[in-house]
Each structure stands twice: as C-alpha cells, then as structure tokens.
C-alpha cells in the first residue's frame, strides 16, 4: 500500500494529464521508487489509480528498460554496452564489476545491495566507458575506478 500523500500526489499528476494514460509512465516510476521495483501489488495500484486494468499496466511496464518487474538490489548498476563504451573497454568494466559482485549480468547480490544490468547507450559517449547507478552517471570508468565505486556504495 502506498501512503496517502503519495496517492494524492499521483492523483494530482493524473488529473493534470491530457489523458490518464499519459501519466502512466510517471505513475509506474513513482511506484517503483517507492517499492524498489514495480511489484505485482504496485501494478494493481497503478491500474487502480489510472483507471486501467493490471494487464494494461503490464503491457507498458514490460516494454520499458528502466521499469523493473522483478526484485532488484538497492542499487541498480546500469553499465552501458553500446558502441562507444564498447570501443573504450566497456566489456572489461562490466566483467570486472560482475567479478567484484560475484554475480552474472542480470543478477542481484545475495545481500540485496546491487543488481547489474547492461543498458542502452546512456548518452555519455564522450566520457565512455560509462555507467549509471540510480540516477547518477559515472564517467570514464576503469576496472580500478569501478572497484572504488562499488566500495563507496557498499560503505557510504
């Protein structure tokens, strides 16, 4: 269950949209931020808020890269695997992080702290290789700086 003030906020967002559906992505993102991922419960809540059916939410939720329909760690590490980062050694960075976390790409660490996902170009090609943790983008990541980064998030 989402808190009442959040429900109110989302209802206001929906009311300001041209159609309810227009606000669907915003609603899903808010619910995801609240729950950590878009849980089944969140899908049903989103459907109720938007006047849609859970299936109609699911059709959208499963379309987008950054809507998680499975549990993810507290920090989702999106490592860009597109061409510019690839050219600058992105694969090595990805491999290094997977090794450091002891998981394969797509996996979540046992402590629930990290999920490692490849992602579409982050639009930071001049600073490649690049990755995003939460909303923060990191530039020119190397195997060494990746290790430091993981450490920072582990022990903030």
């Amino acid at each position: 269950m989402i808190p009442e003030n959040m429900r109110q906020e989302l209802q206001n967002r929906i009311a300001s949209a041209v159609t309810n559906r227009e606000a669907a992505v915003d609603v899903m993102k808010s619910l995801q931020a609240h729950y950590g991922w878009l849980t089944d419960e969140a899908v049903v809540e989103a459907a109720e808020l938007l006047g849609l059916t859970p299936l109609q939410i699911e059709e959208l939720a499963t379309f987008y890269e950054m809507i998680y329909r499975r549990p993810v760690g507290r920090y989702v590490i999106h490592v860009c695997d597109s061409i510019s980062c690839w050219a600058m050694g992105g694969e090595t960075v990805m491999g290094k992080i997977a090794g450091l976390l002891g998981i394969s790409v797509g996996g979540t660490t046992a402590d629930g702290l990290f999920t490692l996902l490849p992602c579409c170009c982050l639009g930071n090609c001049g600073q490649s290789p690049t990755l995003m943790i939460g909303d923060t983008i990191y530039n020119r990541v190397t195997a060494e700086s990746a290790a430091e980064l993981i450490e920072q998030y582990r022990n903030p």
Partner: protein
Amino acid sequence: MPKLIIDNIPVEVAEGTTVLEAAQSVDIPIPHFCWHPALGKAGACRVCAVKMLDGPVKGIQMSCMLPVMEEMVVSTTDPEAMAMRRSVIEWLMINHPHDCPVCDEGGECQLQDYTIAGGHGIRRYTGTKRTHVNQQLGPYIEHEMNRCIQCYRCVRFYQEYAGGTDFGVMGSAGRVYFGRFQDGPLESPFSGNLVDICPTGVFTDKTARFRARYWDYDMAPSICQECSLGCSITPVARYRELLKIIGRRNDAVNAWFICDRGRFSAATPVNNPLRPRTPRIEGREAGWDSALDAIVQRVSELLKNHGPGCIALVGSQRLSLEGMALLPELSTIMLADAPCYFCDERERVQTSAAVTGLTGAISASMADIRQADCIAIVDVDLMAEAPMMVLAVRQAWRSGAGVYSIGETVDLPCECTAVATLDDVPLATAQRPVIICGTSGFTTARQYVSLPMAKGEPVKISCILPGPNSFSAALFSHEHAAISLEQAISSGRIKGIIAVEADIPPELSADIPVIAALDWRNTDTVAAAQIILPTTAWAEMDGTCINNEGRAQHFRKTMNPGLPVHGLNPAGHPSHLHRTIPPGGDLRPAWQIIDELIVRMGGTRTTEQLNGKWEKLRHLDAEGDGLPIYEL
C-alpha cells in the same frame, strides 16, 4: 475505380482497396498472417511482399499496406518478392516449434501452409528455440505461446475489435508475449474467436483438444441456434460427436466472429448420450411404427370422446421452418385449431407485433448496425440475449457512432450514454440511425421510423427476438391466426397436447396429457410425454430458420446422428449386432415425423416442405448471406 495489373491480369477495384485484396479479388492468393479483413492492416508479419514492376510505387512492397493506384503493375511471383517471403517464413520458423504432430492446428495452420508453399525446409539458424511459459486461460482456450509468430491478430481482435481489457501483449523485441496479467479465464464473452483468428496453434479449442484432424472433420455450413441473430457457423464433428464450432463469415450478419455462448454451449446437448434416441411409449422403447400408430390411436380416441378442437399442436421458436410449415396441415387433419407456435400469450403478442411490424425497409441487419452512426438501445440486455449484437454496436462506436441506452443501464464494451427516452437520442440528425430493442420495446421504437429526418436515412430497427426461429414462428402464427397454448388451454377445450420441439412450462400443461413429444432435447415436456419421438438436432439435419432481422438462412447437415463413440463403454464397443444405422442414430427430423403422422392420419405425403411463398427458399445457398424474407 483504379485499374492495375497483377500477374498480367487486369484488375479494377474500388478506391482504398489494398493490393492484397485486389489480388484476392482475382483469385491470386498472397500469403498473409497479420492482415485480416476484419482487423485491417498491421504491417507486422511482412509476408505479403510483392514486387511493384511499374507505376507510382516501385520495388518490394507489402501488399497489405499499399492502397491500389492507377497504373500499378504488380508481380506476386517475382523472384525478389518470393525471396523476401521465404525469408519471413525462415525467420518465423527460427523459433516456431516443430510440434505439428501434436498440435491441434495441424492441417488448418496458415504457418504450416505457407512454410510448405514457400519451400522452406532447411534450417540455417543453428541456435536454440525461444520458449515461453504458458498460461491457464480458463476452460475453453488452450495457450501454447511457443507457437506464436507475433502477428498481433489476437490482441488486435481482443482489445480493438472486442474491447477486452484482460488480455494483451507484453514484453518487447524477441520476448513479446501474448497473454493475461496472471493465469485466469479470459473475461471477454468473445474470447473463443482467438482460436479462429490465430494463424497458428497458440490458441486452440480446449473443449476439442486432441480429438480430430482438419482433414477428418465432418463440416457443413450452419447457423447458430443459441439466439435470434442467426450467426453463421461451421460445426465440426467426428465419430458422431459435435466437437467444436468455428465462426463462419457472413457479411450481412455476424461478419467473421461468433460469441462464446454460441461456440461453447451448443455442442453439449447435441452430444448428450441420454437425449431422446429411440421412440418410447410410456417409457418403454418402441419401434417407429408402433410409436407413430400409438399417437394416431390416442388422437383418434380423444377426437371420438371430445370432438374436434381437443388436440393442441404445439410448435416452438426453435423448430425449423420446415417443421413449422407442416404443422398447420397436421392440425387440419387432427381437426385441431391452428397450431400454437407460442406457449406464452404475451410472448406471442409481442413477437407477432414486432415481426409483422418490420418491413424490409426498416429492419436493420447486423451490417446496418456496424455501419450505423447513431444507436439507441431500448430496454434489452444485449449481452444476455444477443451477444454478437454487442460486438456490432462496438464496431459502430469505433467508427464514431453515438451509442445511447434507454431503460436499464447496459454494460457495453464502448461508451454509452444513458438517456430517459428515445426523444433524447439525436436520431433525427443522424445519417444512419438504428434502434435496437426487445419485443417489449418494439411498439415504442416503431413510432420513430416515421421521424422526419434532417438529412439521413429513416430510422431502422433491430428487434431481438426470444428464440432462434421466433421470426418464423410469429409469421406462421400470424398467417394462421393462431393463439398461444396458454390461451388454448384457458378455453378448456384442450384434452391432449402434441409437442413438437416445444418447451411447455410444466405448470401450464399440468392437467392435460402430453400425448406425444417430438424432440431431441431432454425437456420437462419430454419427461411428461406418453410417447416420445426422437428428432434430429440442428447439426444432424438440413433446415431453414429466419433470424431477428427477417433473414432466412439455410443450415446444412453436419453429421450423422448417433451415440458419440467418445464416452461409450468400451466393453460394448464395437457392437456385434448387424445394423445399418449406428446406435442411437435412428432419429428423424421433426418435419419428417410430422409428415409421417399426416400420412397415418389419412393425409398425403409431402414431397416438398417449402411451398407457396417459401418456394424461393428451397435452393437457398447455405454458404451465402441468406435471404431477407421481405424479398419473397
């Protein structure tokens, strides 16, 4: 009318026609998966590639997406086009399982047909096949997602055409999945059409699973008997069992689809091993001759004791037109009053008023509904009484029609404005307005036919009737000035009843013996009858019925009657008796039994059931659109 050339054949078709349809019009088949006449173009499968040799568009094009244009020169057999089509099949077969031997779609699978037609036989992709987890979609539809070729027909039908909201498409790229949010029965009352519309075996009819192959089917063009709309269907039978029902195209009536009630509830009573299958006298099995003679004897006794008018012959709204047409003759010969085509007096009065009040000019077909721009629904629960009408209304709404309801609020898969009376509906300013009503609302609706129109056509009416052949019943009832059984009994003169596929309320006939019941269903009337004569069900005979619009439609015999082999006690099978008729198969159409009674009462045998004004219906094409009786 643009003129173009397809495979050297000159074609002239209406503006807006696609190249694919233009080719079809001259019998050039172009493979297609996603395109469907009822759903239109999607451009998803890319298998309908043709080569444009000359004209305003050049090169490889998708024929489903391309409207015809003057001076186009099209080749469907150009090597480039064929190579493209072959690629599409190869792509689709990358992930489609090779499970045809255990797939119910085998033999009626478009993918199978085109794969063979295109010559794709060598697998060049050496990776593994994508797999999915299936869902439980309820008792009717089997889900096998691995077979999916992502033509999007299912979701386009389910959501766009039928307005369903619990089934759709999820995921993206190679993980596209068609299903529900979670397991559970499909909610749409039109879900069964997924079976018909899926070009391969993702959705198959669970009720007929693993029972027969397409090439072994008994099939014939038929008419659904579940409500008064008379949708075109193809029943499918094998081994004396009605396996399943497939929707059949009829542009004037149901277009392409049918409802789940028509699809999934019609077979059970036909297959019921316990339905009347042999003549019986007082519960004991009897031969046809003795049962028929017993009826003649009992009728004669009653006539001797009570004089003319003591017998009530009762027809029904599910009896075929052929049976109805013979009943008056039997009445005459039994010195009875006109047959009672209705039991309930109010139903007779209202149905007769509707049927006699309709004319060819004002009676709306379902095609008229789909094309209407203003629809008023007066006091009728369409979902319960005529589900396919709901789908027709939705199509009109999708094209921009306003939909209004008067009386009880109706739950429709489209926007619907509740108003107090028909005066609140903008009928007069519409181009093609239609009122949909039940028999109770007909008289009110009828007044609006003469409404002065601002610019459009006069208001048409579609009146939902109580049964599949109510229209015929009302016509005969009217023609013979017949009264209802209720009224006949209240006169006190009726001493015996002969029921022909009639459902007589037990309380109505409580004090009067039912001498005979001719029926194929186990009804209360059959249970009360002294003599039972088993009739063939609609799927086991040829016949005619008239739908709510007044459209006469012929249905053909799909299967020979008999106890379904499925479910027989294996110990008693095969039967070791010498016989020419299968067990439980010695049934006769009701009209034949009526005819036999006429003969035994001293009348002459009928050589043709449809005479006089019905003569025109004798050669009615069962695969056509039917014939509005206003044209007789």
